[in-house]
């Protein structure tokens, strides 16, 4: 850690604006909180008296639960609001919602929204700290951080690794956060997927866009598989899931091209048999459940840090 380092972020809107020192500090803080979740009584008073609002404009089970568990383990008072994205058509804008919530003086608002940039906008209208819990196809920073924590635990470093990310890069906010995070920490990122799901500009970001699965996965330290977003298939992006599974699915054979100690990861929920075969998802290299466990620790760290506890 650089001497004189100070965590200065009021909000966690994306990975893009976190420095390598910031990421390192968040992950170290998260590690120190991990032990709390292993205690018989999983509660510390750290955030007692803090009010945390989970404002979810898009359905989510695991992210919301993970944030809520993180908040409760630190004794914060949490409130869940699940608003339909159609609420705007009922008359209230996101800014009005934000101003109303802000008037009740919460300390942290955790926002999940189907539009990219919504947390960024919200942060300009509220006094509370804003944590992005996934916005559109932009970023999902807490997921990116928990992925990095999981890799750091197993590989003992975050630099000089080959990270292969396979699948729907275009729509995956997790992939966007992972790409920015792993590159920032000094690793190499290789992506592979159907041309319809590879967004423009990745090369300029420093990502290697591969033309074969083998090129992407060969000697990889991490194979990150992404969920095919079935809800986005109205645009003719893929001819069929059957073909996707055979051309882009991560099978045991694909996994065998990676390093023997490679980690198999997936942000969940998995479409078993499509992007990831069950034997790989449940195999010895899979750290998918570690990711979930680490999610709570990372979110505890973020809640702790944005309330000014650095």
């Amino acid at each position, binding site marked *: 850690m650089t001497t004189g380092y100070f965590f200065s972020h009021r909000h966690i809107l994306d990975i*893009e604006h976190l420095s390598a020192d910031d990421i390192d500090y968040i992950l170290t803080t998260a590690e120190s909180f991990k032990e709390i979740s292993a205690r018989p009584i999983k509660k510390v008073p750290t955030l007692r008296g803090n009010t945390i609002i989970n404002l979810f404009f898009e359905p989510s089970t695991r992210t919301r639960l993970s944030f809520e568990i993180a908040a409760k383990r630190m004794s914060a008072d949490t409130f869940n609001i699940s608003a339909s994205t159609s609420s*705007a058509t009922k008359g209230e*804008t*996101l*800014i009005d919602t934000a101003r109303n919530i802000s008037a009740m003086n919460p300390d942290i608002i955790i926002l999940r*929204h189907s*539009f*990219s*940039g*919504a947390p*960024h*906008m919200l942060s300009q209208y509220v006094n509370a700290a804003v944590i992005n819990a996934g*916005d*559109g*196809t*932009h*970023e999902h920073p807490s997921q990116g951080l928990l992925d990095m924590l999981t890799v750091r635990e197993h590989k003992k470093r975050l630099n000089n690794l080959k990270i292969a990310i396979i699948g729907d890069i275009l729509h995956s*906010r997790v992939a*966007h956060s992972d790409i920015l995070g792993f590159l920032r920490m000094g690793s190499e990122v290789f992506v592979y997927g159907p041309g319809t799901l590879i*967004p*423009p*500009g*990745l090369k*300029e*970001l420093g990502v290697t866009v591969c033309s074969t699965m083998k090129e992407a996965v060969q000697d990889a330290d991490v194979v990150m598989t992404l969920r095919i977003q079935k809800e986005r298939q109205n645009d003719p992006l893929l001819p069929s899931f059957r073909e996707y599974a055979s051309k882009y699915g991560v099978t045991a054979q694909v996994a065998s091209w990676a390093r023997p100690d490679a980690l198999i990861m997936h942000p969940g929920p998995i479409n078993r048999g499509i992007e990831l075969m069950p034997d790989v998802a449940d195999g010895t290299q899979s750290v998918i459940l570690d990711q979930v466990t680490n999610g709570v620790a990372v979110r505890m760290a973020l809640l702790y840090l944005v309330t000014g506890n650095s």
Partner: protein
Amino acid sequence: MMPVPLLIKNGRIIDPANNVDGVRDLLIVDGCITDSATAIPSDVEKIDASGCWVVPGLIDMHVHLREPGEEYKEDILSGTRASAAGGFTAVACMPNTKPVNDSRAVTALILSQATKADARVYPIAAISKNSQGSALTEFGELKATGVVAVSDDGLPVRDSQLMRRALEYAADHGLLVISHSEEPSLSKGVMNEGIISTRLGLKGIPTAAESIMVYREIALAECLGKRVHIAHVSTAMSTELIRSAKARGVRVTAETAPHYFTLTEEAVMGYNTNAKMNPPLRTEQDRQAIRQGLADGTFDAIATDHAPHSILEKEVEFDRAMNGIIGLETSLPLSLALVREGVLDENKLIKLLSMNPARILGVEGGTLSAGARADITVINPDLQFTYTEEQVVSKSRNSPFLGEKLQGRAVYTIMGGRITHRLAA
């Protein structure tokens, strides 16, 4: 009531229509420009134009005045006050009002409001009824009522056969067809497709969405031998298509807008809804190509696509924000930068802002000939100012240039001899 005579003294007269560029006085009597032999009346009001350019009144061939239907954003009076403030003496207004200007009744309403306005208003009617792209509007009756062109601006004409028929039928009535060139199945995004759309997680619109339709319009105009005008060109590829079509003798004209030669997609960073427009802001390579197209005459006009939206449409999530920015009050300073940066000379700039739009639309203006209606803009090209929200004359404030330091602006705008804008000293 006839305005008082005006004597504009010591200005640099730039009048491309008459190949004039030199310092001399200009006398206006009875709302018209006089010839040099006319005696100066005793009640003349003198305007000192030392250090200023005196040019034919600027004409913006692409604005949205929002009346009828969305007067909370802009109306004909407020929009023409903004025009005058920006140095424009005439504007052509697009038909995507509510209701759409697809009938004599709406055209007549606009013209009736315009009699009290601070700029001449030339209505553009829709190509198709309700701009729905299925049946032509009554071009003959619309022309007789006063429209100068037809366009489904805001919406492309999806059906190529309908576009073909529009070009043919418009020619019968001496109407210009203006194309909003956008291939609809490719243009479902909210900004330019590229590295920035990827970084922001916003759905992109590829440049091909525009070029494909520009090429269709050129192909139709070429094979039919008819005229077509391409609105708000934003890409390098479209510029090249128009350039080569012109070289072949195709009757195509084109406009671009100040934001396309000034800004790039970078302006969207931070989810700035005041940089959301259609077509979207493109890359630096596109911006340079647009500037080259202005320099070499590929573009015939600079038009603003003035698109007022209230805070209700802009202070929302980026995906939900409406497209468009206001432009009447910033067009001139942004265009003057092209002269300072050596892209254009003064003469070419005035052609793009006045003479050519008049000729393309087939309306009066664009000249300082003796006997012509006195539509004149006096420009101080050196005046520096910060464009602030308080200064905005338009009803809406949706500009990505707010807070910017700009140089050069209209100090007097004169319409038919009447001063419609005078910059407070």
